């Protein structure tokens, strides 16, 4: 538990973090006031406890796209696994020993030579956090949500990704109950590379569809 306490201390500069976390002299923004007020009320009412809050912050800090990349890398090198993963992602990932039963449903869309996929959540910012870690700021932005469904090609160019006109671009709109992620194309020849190395080239952005795997 001590490391959890340290975790919150790292961010607060105060020993009485339960009630006064950010009192370093700056005037609190509206959001900071709301956060402090909500947290204090939830703690006072016993809805949440401080250890639970710290544990959750630790869990979130431990999530990253490395997990999603390891799954994609395995699929690239194991056709049987890939088939199962695309057909039934959650069950196939659970079979590897990961407990994701409480997580929203997941669909993995495979890029093809003639089809590039990209993911958005236009209504909210739904994102497969347990696969990719916390969503980047731009994924949650109004600009990305509004624009990528209308003109994906142009938006992808802004991300430095020029998809040839012959390729179809499909935009998948995630929801609170069902989240999409992309299985990027394996760079030619890379399927014989060890999984451990492969997963380092599979970037977060390549699994959202706004990037490609880094060339080995």
């Amino acid at each position, binding site marked *: 538990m001590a490391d959890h306490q340290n975790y919150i201390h790292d*961010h*607060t500069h105060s020993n009485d973090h339960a*009630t*006064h*976390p*950010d*009192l*370093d*002299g*700056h*005037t*609190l923004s*509206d*959001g*900071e*006031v*709301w*956060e*402090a*007020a*909500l*947290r*204090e*009320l*939830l703690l006072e*009412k016993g*809805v*949440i406890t401080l250890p*639970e*809050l710290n544990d*959750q*912050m630790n*869990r*979130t800090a431990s999530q990253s796209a490395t997990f999603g990349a390891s799954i994609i890398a395995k699929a690239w090198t194991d056709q049987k696994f890939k088939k199962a993963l695309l057909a039934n992602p959650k069950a196939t990932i659970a079979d590897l020993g990961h407990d994701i039963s*409480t*997580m929203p449903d997941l669909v993995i869309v495979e890029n093809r030579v003639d089809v590039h996929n990209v993911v*958005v959540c*236009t*209504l*909210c*910012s739904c994102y497969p956090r347990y696969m990719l870690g*916390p969503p*980047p*700021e*731009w994924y*949650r*932005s*109004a*600009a*990305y*949500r*509004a*624009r990528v*469904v*209308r003109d994906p090609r142009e*938006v992808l160019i*802004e*991300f430095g990704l020029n998809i040839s006109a012959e390729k179809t671009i499909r935009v998948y*709109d995630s929801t*609170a109950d069902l989240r999409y992620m992309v299985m990027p194309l394996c760079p030619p020849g890379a399927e014989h590379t060890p999984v451990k190395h492969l997963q380092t080239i599979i970037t977060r952005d390549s699994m959202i569809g706004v990037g490609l795997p880094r060339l080995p």
Partner: protein
Amino acid sequence: MTDDKQAKSHTHVETRGAHDLGGFLNHLLAHGIDARISREEMPKTPYEERADAMLLLLSNAGKGFLNIHAMRRASEQFTHEDYLKLSYYDRWLKAMAALCIETGVFSDHEWQAKKQQVILQNKAAQKRISD
């Protein structure tokens, strides 16, 4: 498919919910929102990290206290101005507070009083630091 002209007319009547942004670039522009996508990686600030943790703790991925759909509904009821003006976490914080009041976790009176207390504590701390 909605064309731009239709999107523009929506901007004026605003029959859509504030959250329904897909394809409505003109709607953003009409509200003065930057249409450029900033690719800067923005690490969460400490208060955003705590807001994020509370959101997950309360949601169905955590304690199931406030259903994620209820939380979405709360933020989808914001005015277009509020929805677009508020940052991601401020939107969730406002929605979480609204739902806690709605479901009786705490009263509106307690919420107002607690916010006031936080503001006063902040002012007192500022005074201590400047003294």
